[in-house]
């Protein structure tokens, strides 16, 4: 995207309709509502943006303060006890929400961050389980977030369980999956069944498309809801304060967001001209 399209940071926020990514960010903010402390990985700008929006909304509405730890960041990380502190903090019950991706996610909420094919000689190797084998057990609201929505990612059964969606009775567990968010849809996780239930489909997609792109079976209404985009006031907050905060830690991503918004604005004007 050309930087000529980018709105200068100090200009009044655009009133163009929400971009798909902005709707994702808004959806994440909703999933986080009510938490006190969320931790986000250093290379997870969309979850970070969602957390920042959640924090801004809580402040606007006079709700209790939301803390955000961006791991690996020097500036937005208040931990002072090394990289173990995140896990200790989760063990103490001081982290309410966390995001997990996954090379594979299956219908029972199992996550695979290790590799595709037989272990250990994986055909495709991903980095590894990171902290998932602990945090999935100890963080109450884990949000599975992966933009790619395909049968390759959303599989019937993962090849390696980095972290299981549910545990047998008697296993100590205070955390687990709460929802699965992709570029196409939002699912709630039901640990009782266990399995996913489609909550809403993002604008521009439909149920048959979602079914075709999903490698596991899930529950769904016949006419699923559409994922709501942010209202105008929230959009202004996102494009103003939140984008400013985002620029400090994720400058490249903030530029992308600005460019997308500008593009949406240009498109809107163009459409208005042609009406």
């Amino acid at each position, binding site marked *: 995207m050309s930087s000529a399209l980018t709105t200068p940071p100090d200009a009044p926020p655009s009133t163009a309709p929400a971009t798909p990514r902005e709707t994702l960010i808004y959806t994440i903010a909703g999933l986080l509502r009510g938490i006190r402390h969320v931790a986000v990985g*250093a*290379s997870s700008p969309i979850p970070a943006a969602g957390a920042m929006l959640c924090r801004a909304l809580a402040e606007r509405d006079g709700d209790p303060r939301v803390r955000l730890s961006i791991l*690996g960041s*020097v500036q937005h990380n208040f*931990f*002072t*006890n*090394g*990289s*173990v502190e995140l*896990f200790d903090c989760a*063990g103490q019950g001081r982290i309410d929400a966390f995001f997990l991706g996954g090379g594979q996610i299956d219908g029972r909420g199992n996550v695979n*961050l*290790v*590799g595709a094919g037989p*272990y*250990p*000689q*994986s*055909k*495709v*190797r*991903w*980095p*590894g*389980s*990171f*902290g*998932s*084998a*602990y*945090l*999935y*057990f*100890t963080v109450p609201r884990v949000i599975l977030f992966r933009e790619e929505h395909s049968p390759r990612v959303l599989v019937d059964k993962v090849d*390696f*369980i*980095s*972290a*299981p969606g549910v*545990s*047998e009775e*008697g*296993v*100590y567990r205070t955390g687990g999956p709460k929802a699965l968010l992709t570029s196409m849809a939002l699912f709630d996780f039901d640990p009782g069944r266990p399995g996913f239930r489609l909550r809403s489909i993002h604008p521009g997609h439909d149920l048959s498309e979602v079914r075709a792109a999903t490698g596991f079976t899930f529950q769904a209404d016949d006419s699923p809801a559409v994922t709501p985009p942010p209202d105008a006031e929230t959009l202004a907050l996102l494009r103003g304060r939140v984008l400013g905060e985002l620029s400090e830690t994720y400058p490249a991503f903030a530029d992308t967001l600005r460019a997308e918004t500008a593009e949406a604005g240009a498109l809107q004007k163009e459409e208005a001209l042609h009406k």
Partner: protein
Amino acid sequence: MELNRLAELVPTGACLALPVDYAGVSMAMTLPLIRHGGDDLHLVCVPTGGLQVDMLIGAGKVRLVETSAVSLGEAGGAPCFNRAVRDGAIDLRDATCPAIHAGLLAAQKGAPFTAMRGLIGTDVLANRPDWRVIDNPFGTGGDPVALIPPIVPDVAIFHCPVADRLGNVWIGRRRELAAMAYAAKLTIVTVERISDRPLLETEEMAAGTLPALYVDEIAVAPKGARPYGLWGEYGPDTAELKRYAAAARSTEGFADYMTAIVGEMA
């Protein structure tokens, strides 16, 4: 050269602990390790590995990797690691970050193991015959708990901003570096510079200081973490990481990249 002498302190078959990419990686030691260190290394990534680990694997120095992950972060997957896994060229001990910390903690305390929650039902646990599961002795039956045995590295190597003339090293809030040194039999630290002022002289600096008791060797290596960054000193060179990631996609590309680097350092 001093760094080569230090690399010779890492014997063949040694268990070598290396820190996560943002904590202070002694990249300066990488080539000396490849050329003067032992082979068949057992790497312990604290708790994840990056460029240095990938280079050591690519250079054929590594027998076993114990880690929660290996990646180049923004620059993508670790090409030599991924290739070595696919080819079965290295053994794996896949872990999860807090289990690596738990193993170092057991060593730090001289304890026979550290108990940790999580892990039950994962394939991480299923593939670690060196771990144990017991029923929580404080419970009324059931309640399985994973036990992680001590990780005692033969050598730990990392990079810090400053050491003093008494052998104390300033680690700031990167306390995993202290954990590595507590646990290791031998600790080698490279630093940006040596300070004439004793680090334990003021409470402010003492708070972030690893005492000389745990530090065996110190060498000066300016910009010694590059292309990684060093907290409070300089940022990472992401373009260089990406250049490596692209080059190392093939064994030939990796070899060319390393040859070029040796040339630059000569």
